[in-house]
């Protein structure tokens, strides 16, 4: 006979204000199998836990149901409490009366009814629970960092510092990412390359770090502590081990009209190229879309001139497979596409540029060698107008609903740098709000306004149009309550940023969840901000949400701390809620093995007794419990109902459904 105890938590007023907790505890006493029921102000507190422990001992409870917050918050707490007095931790069920009841309902009567139903549902499940025991699995002491921008670089350096080998997989030909494209960095105005490139070099020189540039993630199998990742090394047509980075190929290559992505297409480059001077690895790559030899078979000049004999036109994509204990996602961002923002004339006017393009126009290694010239006629712009929030905080559907966070600061930076270098330039900034929280940030912005006399105009821009070679910026000045038109020579759009689109594929491969804006979800927005809900996967940089360099670096180091904490363990406790197959029902069809994302299911030929001395050999499924992650995909795929999941058996789920549907 089961003896079930029910514990209803008030969560202060969080639950008790909307749910009649006393009534729930009272009524639930009448449920079959329930021998004890109580309510308490904070069940998770030391006293609350003691209440549970005492009841387990006193009434000899065989299973308990806690009506409280989400099991994601405190299931572990209550399991530990139960275990400490000898009740198997898997005999604990949590009915979520906070997130699923009190926080989303207003009517107390209705909420109380629903709370009763959810508690009854948990009781229906716990009646069928069975004690389970955790297993152990080993940890591969190697980490993978996806993305070689500042986030990935910092995470890799910190992990390597602790002594663990780490691989950086970067889809471009060099690491460095967006930060490598920037000119100066706020709020200190030090040169981006000057602070980034030493870190890039550190990565290259660190013997614990293996940089896999021009590579992409192809396939991910396994689970926390034991990921198996297939990596595609794209054909760069240059042997990395031979190329010395002498660049003679770049001076000889006749195909010079390629758009230079590193310079935001404001410059051309040769088909064979090294993305920028400080590239790591400092190895050339051939753009197959542009290379004459690869396209037409005629040319081969670079091969003739390459003293190292590094050029190989027959190179193919190759694959490597490696094992990792932990994975850091640091895939970064890109500015959004501006085709939906016709009003700013970006597509029609060369002198309407994005802020990232302006970074290149101001950079000493950029297309203008650091002299600020406008793209159309290479003259000094005398009047520059900045437009903030282009596509950010936009609920019209054209842009993004969120604040891109970095634009206020970099616009102030651009305005200040221009006024510093070219004091004869007039600089206007249209803004909705100026948001500058952060150490020394507001001071930085005020310097732009007060010391450099940048003209900040509160208001939005309606349109930008070309009139006799001048870009007319028409907007509203809300503080003076008037419509204004500013004839400008250069217009800079503080374009919203969005996660690098390839993150969707990565998220799918990792089964990491993603939000409606393609930002990866963290496990808890406040308390577990660098962990993905998928165990063993960590998030660094803009892939998780808009952030600037200091925040990105902090997050990357936080990721590294989490990774090091994981890799320092020799064994991980495995989830005992794993699948198993009833061999008497399994017909060997292999569908479960097809859907298993972890490769946990294999098939064996097994001899079965048929009675009368006869035997039969049948093919049946066999689950490796160390590999199974308990996702349950096999149980719903199995056509025979032979596959079942411990802790979440089909019978338990059905009994829960029935408890919910019962009138």
């Amino acid at each position, binding site marked *: 006979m089961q003896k079930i105890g029910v514990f209803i938590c008030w969560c202060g007023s969080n639950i008790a204000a909307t749910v009649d907790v006393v009534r729930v505890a009272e009524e639930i006493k009448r449920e079959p199998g329930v021998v004890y029921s109580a309510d308490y102000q904070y069940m998770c507190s030391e006293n609350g836990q003691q209440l549970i422990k005492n009841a387990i001992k006193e009434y000899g409870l065989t299973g308990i149901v806690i009506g409280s917050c989400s099991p994601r918050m405190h299931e572990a707490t209550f399991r530990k409490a139960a275990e400490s007095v000898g009740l198997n931790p898997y005999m604990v069920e949590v009915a979520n009366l906070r997130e699923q009841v009190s926080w989303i309902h207003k009517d107390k009567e209705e909420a109380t009814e629903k709370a009763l139903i959810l508690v009854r549902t948990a009781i229906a499940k716990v009646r069928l629970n069975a004690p389970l025991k955790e297993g152990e699995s080993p940890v591969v002491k190697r980490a993978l960092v996806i993305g070689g921008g500042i986030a990935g670089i910092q995470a890799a350096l910190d992990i390597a510092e602790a002594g663990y080998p780490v691989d950086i997989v970067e889809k471009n030909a060099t690491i460095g990412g967006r930060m490598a494209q920037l000119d100066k960095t706020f709020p200190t105005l030090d040169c981006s390359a000057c602070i980034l490139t030493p870190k890039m070099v550190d990565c290259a020189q660190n013997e614990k770090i293996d940089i896999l540039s021009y590579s992409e993630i192809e396939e991910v199998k396994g689970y926390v502590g034991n990921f198996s990742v297939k990596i595609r090394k794209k054909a760069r047509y240059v042997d990395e081990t031979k190329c010395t980075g002498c660049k003679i190929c770049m001076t000889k290559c006749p195909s010079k009209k390629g758009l230079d992505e590193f310079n935001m297409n404001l410059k051309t480059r040769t088909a064979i190229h090294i993305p920028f001077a400080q590239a790591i690895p400092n190895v050339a790559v051939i753009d197959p879309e542009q290379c004459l030899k690869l396209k037409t078979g005629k040319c081969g000049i670079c091969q003739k001139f390459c003293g190292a004999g590094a050029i190989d036109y027959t190179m193919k994509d190759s694959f490597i497979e490696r094992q990792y204990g932990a994975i850091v996602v640091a895939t970064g961002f890109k500015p959004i596409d501006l085709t939906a923002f016709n009003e700013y004339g970006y597509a029609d006017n060369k002198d309407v540029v994005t802020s990232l393009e302006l970074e290149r126009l101001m950079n000493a290694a950029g297309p203008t060698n650091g002299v600020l010239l406008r793209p159309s006629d290479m003259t000094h712009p005398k009047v520059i107008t900045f437009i903030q929030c282009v596509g950010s905080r936009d609920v019209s559907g054209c842009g993004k609903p969120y604040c891109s966070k970095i634009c206020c600061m970099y616009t102030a930076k651009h305005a200040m740098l221009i006024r510093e270098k070219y004091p004869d330039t007039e600089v206007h900034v249209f803004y909705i709000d100026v948001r500058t929280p952060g150490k020394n940030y507001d001071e930085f912005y005020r310097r732009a306004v007060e010391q450099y006399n940048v003209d900040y105009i509160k208001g939005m821009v309606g349109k930008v149009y070309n009139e006799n070679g001048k870009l007319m910026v028409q907007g509203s000045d809300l503080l003076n309550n008037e419509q204004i038109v500013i004839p400008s020579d250069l217009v800079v759009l503080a374009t919203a940023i969005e996660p690098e689109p390839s993150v969707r*594929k990565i998220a*799918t491969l990792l089964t990491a969840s993603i939000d409606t804006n393609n930002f990866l979800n963290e496990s808890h927005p406040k308390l577990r901000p660098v962990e993905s809900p998928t165990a063993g996967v960590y998030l660094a940089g803009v892939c998780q949400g808009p952030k600037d360099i200091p925040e990105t670096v902090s997050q990357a180091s936080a990721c590294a701390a989490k990774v090091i904490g994981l890799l320092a363990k020799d064994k991980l406790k495995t989830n005992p809620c794993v699948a198993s197959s009833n061999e*008497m*029902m*399994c*017909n*060997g*069809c*292999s*569908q479960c093995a*097809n*859907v298993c994302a972890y490769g946990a299911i294999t*098939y064996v030929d097994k001899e079965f007794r048929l009675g009368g001395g006869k035997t*039969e050999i049948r*093919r049946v499924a066999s689950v490796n419990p160390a590999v199974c992650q308990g996702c349950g995909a096999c149980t719903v*795929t199995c*056509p*025979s*109902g032979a596959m079942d999941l411990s802790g979440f058996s089909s*019978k338990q789920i*059905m009994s829960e459904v029935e408890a919910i549907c019962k009138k």
Partner: protein
Amino acid sequence: MSELEKRIIEKAATLLAGGEIKRVVGWKKGEFIHDPSPATFETEESLKDFIYNDFCGANLSKYLIDIFKREGKTAVFLKPCDSYSFNQLVKEHRIKRENVYVVGIECHGKLANYKVEEKGITGITSEAHEGENVVFDTLYGKVTASREEVLLDRCLTCKGKKHVVADETVIINDYEDKVSDRFAMVRELEAMTAEERFAFWQGQLSKCIRCNACRNVCPACSCLKCVFDNPQSGIAAKANDDTFEEQLFHVIRAFHVSGRCTDCGECSRVCPQHIPLHLLNRKFIKDIDSLYGEYQAGEEAEGKTPLTSYTESDTEPNNVFTVTEGK
């Protein structure tokens, strides 16, 4: 005896005489020529009862699940649409391909007994296709009926004359691979309002007498222990609760075989109440085609299936409703 039947029986005899083949699976004469049943033949003498005519609708693939396990090799005669079921069972590891010798045979569409009876045609001694008609010799003289009137529903929308698997074939007549639109009726159902559709299926499924013939004949329904027969499942008796639960039997079965059903149409053929059960399966097939790309279960004996694999081009869950509603 038709030339085709003669050649098939000769083939069976040659195979048995060869020694390697221990038995052939085919059709056995009943009392009349219109009631053949599936049978195994182990000796040349037993072949005197072998029959192959347009009443031999039964799909022999499912019988192999048990028969292939017997000692020695088994030969089987498969019509084009049966060969899909065979392949699907090989794919699901229910039949070992190397234990079976497959002879693909010609088929011009099989006859529905009840349609022939309804036309008052009795005492049949022989029959043959002639153009768009079927001509019956009966004890009472010659009777002609149009194919459309007497063919099985599934054969009216034939899915092709290709054998997807065969070690050899016995085909003597000119063979036209005429594929017709099998989803016309599904589209009609989709065009109905939810209420109309509910009424349609309620009208059909309320005829069900739960004889389980559809399940027993279905090559995709081959679990060792059917969930409806298993007291452990906790739902075995549910279908007896009320008529609505009863009707859900067919819906559950359609889900069960989705992605694996080759559209062989045996369920409708054997239904004594003439419920068009194949339409439920076809709805799934049509939805899978439109959501995940054209797919024919049983076309290949290996490879991935749309419902148990993931590709990046798979439709997003929020599109499923609009697509499957046929809008």
